[in-house]
């Protein structure tokens, strides 16, 4: 395990590269979802306002 983590002496380069890329992968999935949820909520609010105006 230690041998794996030390990456043959390249740990300080390999691990930041892997962690950063995985972080960007997770972050993009998260922000995309957040944008969709926000757009849905915004649409919901508009529809609610319109239906109260109509009644």
């Amino acid at each position, binding site marked *: 395990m230690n041998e794996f983590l030390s990456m043959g002496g*390249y740990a300080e380069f*390999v691990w930041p590269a892997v962690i*950063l890329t995985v972080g*960007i992968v997770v972050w993009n999935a998260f922000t995309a979802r957040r944008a969709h949820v*926000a757009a849905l909520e915004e649409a919901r609010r508009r*529809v609610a306002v319109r239906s109260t105006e109509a009644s």
Partner: protein
Amino acid sequence: MDFTWFHRFGSPPHVYRLAGMLTPWFAWPALVLIVAGLYGGLVLAPPDYQQGDGFRIIYVHAPSAWLSLMIYSMMATAAAVGLIWRMKVAHAAAAACAPIGAWFTVATLATGMLWGKPMWGTYWAWDPRLTAELVLLFLYLGYMGLRAAIEDPQRADRASAVLAIVGVINVPIIRYSVEWWNSIHQAPSVMKMGKPSITGDMLAPLLMMFLGFTLYFVAVMLVRLRAEVLRRERTARWVEEVVAT
């Protein structure tokens, strides 16, 4: 010829529903491939005979670089379709591509620097390929900045589309930079004509990462596209139905 299929792609409610239906079919295989590719690349693959374990950065660097270029090409194509056929959904697709592409350009540059330090002895060099990849990041940021700066959505679509299309010239420059100029960057090992110059147990995880990242991009782009379409169509009737469910 029957072009109804093409017109359906211009219909926002259709695109919104189709994107929602397709997303899991890309997201789950992407997750499996990325996890398997990382395991294969970081654990199973043998160390490189010259670069030792440092070469493993390729498993995150090369797929990110592929995405940074592929996403830009798709963005420019979508922008062109939007400009030529005045298709709003195409502009929405182009806009959905930009932030993802920008992030993976950042990943490409950062992982490349982390590889360059031990292998070349420097984080950065004003080398043709590195410089062109940096220009790619500025193109993405310029595209997003331009969209954000123009209030009228239709004008923003058109102006940013022109920028995206003009900038596409940078894609072949990055791709062929290592062949056209004396670049410090190594030549391709996989994405080239003929057999890959890399052994099977190193290659398999790399291919998984390429495919996994591509599917991942499609999934994330579809979610962003849905958000984009909803925002543009907020006054449309069909949105009420979507919201009601």
